[in-house]
């Protein structure tokens, strides 16, 4: 069964088509990598899944619940981290998580648990505005992980982290499905990063889903199409180039 299913999901901003008829199938219990260059429509798609922006057309369901009918239920069972860290700068890291905990009606212990999970436990009492960028990213992740939601939607969670931080967060994301029994939808424009994290992959370019499947399927597909299949970056560039050519011909 799929955790997320979208049906012809489309988002237009005036004449600009940010997302066009995207049909995602995110399987339960794994890491799904959402890859695409900047401006491909990854964040817009994720925002639609969280109800932050309404789709122009199309529908989607999360864990069998349909949006917008079950918006509150979907949000209750989804941890998210979208684009940039979002927090109250006047509150400590712990107080920020405490707010989320109270909204989600979770047990008190969940705050310490989330801080521990992202390695922020020693800095919980520090004001969030005094955190480094990496710590703010971790706080955002802790907020998403709070209460061990069955679905995590993480938009470029390693942005702004140093190489050690990227490695740590990558390992954390990789371990989450087993550790918390959840599904992770993670986006990145860094293809090498997704290659190291994801079981399934969706490639998006200029609002269109060019490929969806497992890493192995991608390699097979690339080989059958005569694209380079040795590394994801070359495959991706070939896919995008092919899509551009197709677009020009039309």
């Amino acid at each position, binding site marked *: 069964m799929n955790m997320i299913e979208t049906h012809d999901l489309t988002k237009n901003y005036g004449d600009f088509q940010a997302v066009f008829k995207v049909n995602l199938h995110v399987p339960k219990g794994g890491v799904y990598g959402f890859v695409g260059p900047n401006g491909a429509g990854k964040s817009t798609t994720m925002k639609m899944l*969280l*109800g*932050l922006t309404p789709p122009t057309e199309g529908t989607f369901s999360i864990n069998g619940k349909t949006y917008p009918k079950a918006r509150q239920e979907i949000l209750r069972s989804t941890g998210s981290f979208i684009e940039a860290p*979002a927090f*109250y*700068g006047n509150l400590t890291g712990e107080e920020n998580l405490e*707010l989320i905990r109270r*909204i989600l009606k979770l047990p008190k212990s969940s705050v310490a648990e989330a801080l521990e999970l992202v390695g922020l436990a020693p800095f919980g009492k520090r004001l969030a505005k005094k955190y480094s960028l990496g710590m703010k990213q971790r706080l955002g992740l802790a907020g998403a992980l709070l209460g061990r939601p069955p679905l995590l939607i993480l938009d470029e969670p390693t942005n702004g982290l140093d190489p050690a931080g990227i490695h740590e967060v990558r390992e954390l994301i990789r371990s989450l499905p087993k550790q918390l029994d959840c599904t992770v939808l993670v986006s990145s424009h860094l293809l090498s990063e997704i290659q190291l994290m994801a079981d399934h992959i969706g490639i998006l370019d200029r609002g269109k889903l060019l490929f969806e499947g497992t890493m192995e399927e991608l390699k097979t597909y690339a080989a059958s199409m005569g694209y380079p299949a040795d590394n994801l970056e070359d495959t991706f560039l070939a896919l995008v180039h092919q899509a551009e050519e197709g677009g020009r011909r039309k």
Partner: protein
Amino acid sequence: MALEFTKIKRTGLLPAFLCGGLLASMIPVLNMAVRSEAYVNLSQPPLDILLDGNWQTMAMLNLLLAVIGACLVYHTEFADNAMEKMRTLPIGEGRMFLGKTLVLACMCIVVLIIETAALATCGAIWFESGDIVWPDLMRNAGCMLLLLLPAVILSLLVASLCENMWISFGIGVLGVFIATMMPSENFALSLFPFALHFHVLGEKTAELGVGAAVEILALVAAGAVIQKIRRRF
């Protein structure tokens, strides 16, 4: 509302309201200390004398405090993108708006209590004891709160729509100054949310009170609806 009280920690909102309340309460005290002879021999009841002599300035300070408070509470939401996080949680923005309204209403109550205490002190020191009675003072404070709330809610509504705090602050200040220029005899103009609070207890109090109550309900409903539908645009 408890959530909203947590959010205002370290924003300086409470000290701002306490200082603002103290500043406003200094006005009648200083006025009486400096020129009590201009007031003590008047024939009106002492509370009316004190309000006639000082309320316009006190009301302006209260309104500016309401504008500042509204800007501050929404600034904490927008400054570090916290609003975005809140929108991904199962909490209605309308409920958040209502919570913030109640927080600011509580702050206004604190301010009005300080000001009422100052008026009572002036009455006790400069007028004969028993001239100012507590029921009158409390009734006055209650009315002033009722007449202040439409401005508070309107300021909050503006602040919720402007991510830049200075824009909402500018609009609020403009509203306060426009209200000071409005003729108080015109009942329709008196109903402008920022103009209501300038009125002291008098013949029109009941009508203004009803008007304020209607405005409060309308603005709260408008606020809740706007917060709900803005996500769609």
